[in-house]
Structure formats: C-alpha cells, structure tokens
C-alpha cells in the first residue's frame, strides 16, 4: 500500500501502460525533459526514450492530427494539452476528423487526449476551463473526468486501452490535494461508462463529477448533521457515454435530484442529464431537477470573483434544502 496523490496516480497509470504496451507514446508541449507543466510525465523521457515522449511545437491541431494518424496505424498515442483550455484550438480536427473516423471510414483511432481542467486555482478565464460541454455533442468521442486518485489511475489505463478516442479531463485543483492508499500490485482499471455511488442516501441525490464530487460529499455530510438529510452522491466519472442506468437508479431511489457541475449553466452537461431524467423517469420525480453550476460568465481571476462565480459547498447545501423541502 502506498499513499499517492491524484497526480501521482495518474502518472503511475500512464507509466504502467507505457511499460505494458510499447505502442503507447506521449506527445505534447514540454512533456519531455521538463515533464509537463504540472510534471505529470516527469521522468518519462528518461525512462521511455525521446521517441515515446515527444516534445511538440505549440500546435494543438498537429498534436491531435498526428495522434490520429499514428492511431490509425496501430499505435496508442496519449496527447497532453498543457492546459485543457488549449484543446479548443484543435476543436475542428477533433470533432470533425477524429470523432467521425470510425463511422465514416472504418478507421480505428484509439487515442487519448488529457490535460488539466477546472478552476478554484485563480487561473483566470483561460487556465480554468471545463471543456466537457463542448464535446458532449460529438458522437464518436468518449469523455471521462476522474475525481479520485483511484479513478485517476483506473481511467487513464482504461482510456489508453479503449478502442475509441477518449478525452480524459483531470482536475488541477485535485492534483496534489487528494490522496489515497492504492495497493501496489493491483491492476486498477475503472470501466468507462460506469458511474459510482460514492455515498448512499435516501432523501435526495447529487449527481456530479470531478472536483465537485468533493464539495458534494462535504455538503452531504453537513446536511446530514444539520438537517438530518440522507444524501446520495453519484460520481458519474464518464460523461460520454452517460451511465443512464445509474442516473435512473438514483432518481428512482431518492426522487429528488441536484446536478452539480463546475462549468457554466447554459449549455452545460446538466441540461442533458436533466433531459434524460425527464425522459427516462419523469414519474419518479417529486421535485424539479435543480442545477448547481457556475454563473454564465467567463471565469474571472480575482479570488472574490472566482469564488462567487464557481459553485461552492454552501450553494449545494442551500439548493439541497430547497429540493428536499419541495
């Protein structure tokens, strides 16, 4: 057993897959000698060689395009975006070329794109983004967002082994704040497409993922203490394809739902989940589905502003009380 951070778990998962499968290689900006802006690939170039840990020019389109080409030929590229905010530069080739390759042309494109996402770190509008809503709308992609060290490891390994392109959004706020004991010898694989009930409850459910999982758990504990409410917390872990079964199960169990995400509200993933709940188990709802999300603004830099714009534990508590009392 070793206590590892979220970041170390991710690093270990990457390293295990590179050691296991020589087809796996990494490309991105400053991933080599420097080990990446957040040091996720620290030591990799030394261990696996320059050819398998490639420092690229500042060219997100080329990174994603080259990964796709290599993937067609049977390799297993893992692209790092220095910040996930820069994935937007490759939006077109990712959604038009990569995502459709199998459907339109039968091309195998097993590749992973990963990078630091999320706020709460005073990163300002271009180093704090949550990109999931931008890609939810793209048949052909998979999308995961681990909240725990175990899943950070389990999902990167599963993503690398997946036959389809997977976007892996790690949360930079969690990198060094979350620690977990992970057994040394165990092969950790988190199945893609499977949510997890992280806390059982019966009065209401919070459906969430990534850093918001921890705020949701905090809110749940507080609500239990102060209000005697039993709150179930579901960590989606995979956002594409969504685990409809898990969503429906928790709705049927508690009949009251909060969806909590860090991203802005309008056009966010919570809308899709609300619609699915509506379509799949409308009759089971005793209260409207409520969304707890960021305000609809670009994320500002000042701590006072960022804290106001991003959803906080208090917002969850208030919203939960409202839903419970409905």
């Amino acid at each position, binding site marked *: 057993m070793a206590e590892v951070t979220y970041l170390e778990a991710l690093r270990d998962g990457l390293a295990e897959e590179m050691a296991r499968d020589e087809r796996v290689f990494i490309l991105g900006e400053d991933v080599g000698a420097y080990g990446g802006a957040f040091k996720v690939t620290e030591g990799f170039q030394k261990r696996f060689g320059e050819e398998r840990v490639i420092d690229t020019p500042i060219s997100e389109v080329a990174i994603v395009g080259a990964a796709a*080409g290599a993937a*067609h030929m049977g390799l297993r590229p893992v692209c790092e975006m220095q910040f996930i905010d820069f994935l937007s530069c490759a939006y077109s080739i990712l959604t038009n070329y990569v995502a459709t390759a199998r459907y339109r042309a039968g091309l195998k494109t097993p590749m992973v794109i990963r990078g630091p996402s999320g706020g709460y770190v005073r990163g300002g509008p271009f180093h704090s983004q949550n990109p999931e809503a931008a890609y939810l709308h793209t048949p052909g992609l998979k999308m995961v967002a681990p909240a725990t060290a175990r899943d950070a490891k389990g999902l990167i390994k599963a993503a690398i082994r997946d036959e389809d392109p997977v976007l892996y959004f790690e949360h930079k706020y969690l990198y060094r704040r979350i620690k977990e004991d992970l057994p040394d010898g165990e092969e950790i694989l988190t199945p893609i497409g499977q949510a997890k009930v992280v806390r059982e409850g019966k009065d209401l459910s919070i459906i969430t993922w990534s850093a918001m999982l921890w705020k949701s758990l905090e809110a749940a504990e507080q609500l239990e203490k102060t209000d005697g409410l039993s709150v179930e917390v579901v960590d989606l872990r995979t956002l594409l394809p969504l685990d409809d079964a898990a969503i429906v199960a928790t709705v049927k169990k508690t009949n009251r739902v909060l969806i909590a995400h860090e991203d802005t509200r309008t056009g966010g993933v919570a809308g899709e989940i609300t619609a699915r709940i509506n379509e799949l188990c409308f009759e089971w709802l005793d209260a409207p589905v409520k969304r707890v999300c960021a305000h609809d603004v670009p994320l500002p830099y000042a701590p006072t502003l960022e804290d106001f714009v991003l959803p906080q534990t208090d917002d969850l508590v208030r919203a939960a009380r409202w839903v419970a009392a409905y």
Partner: protein
Amino acid sequence: MTSTLEPGTPALHAGLSQAQLHELYYFMRLTRSIEEKLVNLYRQTKVIGGLFRSLGQEADAVGSAYALDKGDILSPLIRNLGSMLVKGATPVEVLRQYMAKAESPTRGRELNIHFNDLERGFLGQISHLGDMVAVMAGVTLSFRMRREARVGLVYVGDGAMSTGAFHEGINFAAVQRLPLVIVAENNGYAYSTPMHKQTAVAELVEKAAGYGVRGAQADGNDVLAVYEVTKEAVERARAGGGVTLIELMTYRRKGHAEHDNQSYVTKEELEAWAAKDPLDRYARHLTEGGRATAAELAAIDARVTAEIDTAVALCENEPLPEPATALDGVLAEPPKAELEWYRRLDG
C-alpha cells in the same frame, strides 16, 4: 534557407519501362473517363451530391502517386481521383461512392472520393482543408517509430495552404524530419479565388523556406516530370532526408464543382490550358518517341471504356443503404443503455 527551386528537365522516360509508361497513360485516361462518366450520371441525377472534376490535372495526380511504393500511404484531395486509382481504388468503388450505394466503401456514409483503404495505401480526406497534413504527419511518425522504410504523401491545394492546420502539420513534420512528401497543387484557383488573393508569394514553393524543408517544383501537366520530382522526394524521405514540399504547376479547367460556371475566368485562359492538356501531351510524347503506337493507346482507351461500362452496369441499379444501418459503428462497441433508451423513446 534549404529551399531549392528545381524546375528541372525530366529524363525522357524517367527510368520507367514501356509497360509502366503505358500504365501511366492508362491511369490518366481512367481518371478522365470515370469523371466523364460521372458527368453523365450527374446529368441523369444519379450522382447524389456534387461532382468534382480534375480535368487537366490528371498528370499531377497520377504521376505523383506512381512514385510511391506499395507500402507507402497517400492522402488525396478532391482532385486526386487519379492518385487513388494508382493506389488501387477501383472504378466501381468510385461510382458507388458518388451514387451513395449500400455497397460503397463507406456504405453510403461519405461522398465522392472520401474513402480509404490503408492496406492499399490511401487515407480518405475530410472536407476541412489542411487537416490531412497533420494526420499524415502522424502516419509517417508511426513509420519512423517502427523503423519501417515507408513514406507518406499528402496533397494540398494553393487554397488549403492558407489554413492553420496545414501550417501546424507541415511544421510538425519538418521538426521531426518525417518521411513525408507534401504535394502542393498550384491550379491557379481555390474555388473562385485566384492565387494572388490567397498568398503574397508568387510560387507556392517559396513556402518551403519558412519550414526549413526542401522545396521542389515541376510542370504538373507533364506526367513524367511529376513522377520524377516526386520520386526523388520520396526516396529522399525514405532515406531519412525529411520533408519535401513539391509545387506542381497546373490548372483547374473546370469549375470548383459541376455547378460552378467559372464566370471568373477568361476564355483565353481556359483555351491556353486546354492546349496544354496532360493526356494529349503524354499521348503525343509516347507516340512521337516511339514508346507507344496509336493503336496501343486506342486499345488502352477501349479497355478503360470497357472497365467503366462494366463498373456502371455492376452498380448502377444497386440499392441505397438500409436506413437503420445509419446507426452502427460510431464507437467500437455501442453504448447499450443509450441505444435501448433511444429506441424506446422513439417507439
């Protein structure tokens, strides 16, 4: 600067055997005749979407692709039907694609020559220009990583070179010294836009310097010159010499697509280039040089006609795809829960 202009004079027969010289003629003729047949089918509204011609550019496509070896991979553009035929695409595949038949290589999902076969060595384009340069950088990166002596070739138009994707792709390949040949087809226009509104350089080969790659140039209407200039670049790439950007000077003699009446070009310009027709020119070259008789070429023409007639007969009346086939194959394994849910709601 590493760019060198090499307009060159091709060796008379570029080291090709008589059979190969005839084969070049065959592929050019096949290209032209397939497209002419498609015009017929288009007028009969049997072609579903638009129709794109490469009239006058057959030498450029065929000559360059012919310089590749079996394991090499190319990525064509809309005017590179000829390149795909050289790499083994068949007339019936092309016809089925244009007519969106169930049996088409993409099962009716993609249009015209947007299809691929990595075994035969061609990777299908998508519409978004420039992307394939980046993708081919990855294909050739895989060759290098695996120590395979294979080469990639990707086409770009004068217009496509203005895209950011082209820039990022060629630069990545240049830095990595990948075995990639980039063929820039200077056909004068991007849709209606003349080259001087696309770039401030007079010749596309000037762009090689900015990427630190070798530049080369050839008359795109001379199939042997095209073959030679490409062959040299391919072998250099195979030997570890990195990227070459080749500019082929040619002309798009039809509109961007069949619906475009080319109002923006003069009759004189069109006539001047018709006089430089690559097929006529090559036929003259072969017959005048004693490499083929008129009868031999006529026999090739007849063979081409027969092949196309056979292909049309084979697929013309084939069915379109079954509607529900539209749903499969988005992911390697369908996400079951979602599909069930979807059908239930739509029931």
